């Protein structure tokens, strides 16, 4: 599924948070959204998962305006992993994933065998089927994120939006989650904090600063040391990762000593 964002401006309390943003994600691409805190990453994502209506501009999926569809139809096209995954009451893992079926069900429909098959299959793909009857609140942070990925899979939407999915996870779990989402074959739009993750995993990067797009393109074309210094205020070095051989970005503060 192709995502197009064109000329998008979104305001909170009449204050523009993002202005005139353009962004495209080709089908199957992993698009990373990077930028310093407060640059408007979450706000941009919220306009894609319909938590915040843009004041001008269009978000379209395969050419169809996302904000002109019924909410349920939009949810069949794109799923989301929000930053705060905690629940307001105790739910089992199976119940959490079952929430993902909501956009496929009418007012009077009950969950049927097909829904349960989708739920089990989704849990299997994230290696969490063993936990189906466990309470969500008893899982570790990484396990919860995997379950929320399963909920998104149960939605059967070709576009997955993720807002800093690796927040508060330990290193191994962070990489495991990124490996997982990249293996799903979905179009991905993710706000990422870690530039090295962005370089290692994304096909395309969009850099936001103060609510505007500063640059967009292939990770290594965009994240030059000068540019990273300018936008993020750190010294950067691009090289080959000593373990994987893939591109790698190392950062340090401008104050830190050189070798």
């Amino acid at each position: 599924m192709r995502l197009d964002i064109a000329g998008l401006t979104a305001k909170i309390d009449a204050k523009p948070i993002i202005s005139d943003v353009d962004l495209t994600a080709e089908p199957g691409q992993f698009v990373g959204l990077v930028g310093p805190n407060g640059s408007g990453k979450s706000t941009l994502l919220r306009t894609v998962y319909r938590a915040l209506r843009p004041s001008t501009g269009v978000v379209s999926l395969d050419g169809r305006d996302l904000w002109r569809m019924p909410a349920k139809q939009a949810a069949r096209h794109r799923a989301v992993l929000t930053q705060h995954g905690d629940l307001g009451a105790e739910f089992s893992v199976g119940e959490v994933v079952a929430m993902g079926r909501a956009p496929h069900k009418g007012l009077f429909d009950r969950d049927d065998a097909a829904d349960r098959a989708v739920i089990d299959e989704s849990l299997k793909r994230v290696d969490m089927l063993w936990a189906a009857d466990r309470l969500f609140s008893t899982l570790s942070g990484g396990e919860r994120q995997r379950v929320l990925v399963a909920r998104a899979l149960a939605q059967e939407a070709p576009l997955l939006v993720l807002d800093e999915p690796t927040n508060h996870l330990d290193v191994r779990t962070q990489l495991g989650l990124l490996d997982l989402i990249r293996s799903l074959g979905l179009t991905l739009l993710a706000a990422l904090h870690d530039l090295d993750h962005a370089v290692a995993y994304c096909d395309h990067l969009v850099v936001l600063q103060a609510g505007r797009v500063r640059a967009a393109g292939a990770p290594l074309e965009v994240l030059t040391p000068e540019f990273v210094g300018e936008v993020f205020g750190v010294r950067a070095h691009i090289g080959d990762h000593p373990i994987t051989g893939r591109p790698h970005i190392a950062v340090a503060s401008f104050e830190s000593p050189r070798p």
Partner: protein
Amino acid sequence: MVSGTMTWFLVAGLVVALIVVSMAAISIGSVNLPVGSVWNVVGARLTGSASGDPLREQVVWDIRTPRVLVAAVVGAGLSVAGVTLQALVRNPLADPYILGISSGASLGAVLTVAFGATALGGLGVTGAAFLTAVLSVLLVYVLAQRGGRLLDSRLVLAGVAVGYLASAATSYIQLRVSPTELHGLMFWLMGSIAGATWSDVGVPAAVIAVCTAFLLLQGRNMNALMAGDDAAAGLGTSVRALRIALLVVGSLLTATAVSVVGGIGFVGLMVPHATRFLVGGDHRRVLPVAMLLGAVFLVAVDIATRTVDRPNELPVGIFTTALGVPFFLWLLRRRATGGS
């Protein structure tokens, strides 16, 4: 995940329990009647024949049966109100009484009772109670939220503050209008089922049935809302419309219960929790089970109010509060240590 079949067994079991506990409640009283004769009278009434004992018939059919039915209806209504408010504020500590909504509804009811229907623009007791209940929820909501999130501490404090304010106003009006009528004051502050008549049964039962049916259809959306506003939007829920609907339904349920029996606390807290413990978090299971469990619970508590201090009768609100406060404190403590 609890299977659907198990939930149906539970629902069937609760229906049986409700019938049993209701029969017991009708047979127990200042004059104890054998359960068999209660069956006779109720059966005769339902089939339209005469049971042959007018005095017994009067006690069973005109005094005790409506009272037991009101207890069941109100218990069901307060429990469903609790589930609704917990989804609305996305916090399991919510309850019509703790959030001050019962007190708000009492204020509206007392205003109409004291000054007549003209006081609030021609609304009836329930209508006025509904209006002030909605205002209370909105006030608590505004006071408790900071940056779009509702914190436990702020929610409870805002509820207590709004509740006290409404209670003080209720007491003042009640005492201004009839300084000697302490009984009436007790009714609105503590709640009582004594004196319920047949006219108190029909409309509340219909309101609660319609509200619960509506909520059942919104079960999936209520589940999604528990995952947070943003996640719910991502799952295809129209969050703002659902919130407004829950606010209206929660206030309506509370106002209906309060205008019949006054402020009965903590039912809407305890019953939904016990229900979630039994069937999990899915609202499509929680709502019917909570409704029945609430009915059974309040009929049982009503039996206790009549038997603990015989021949005196105690307000039912004292019992639910005595049970509810320790439960509430335990819950608060568990949440404080258990994160989330």
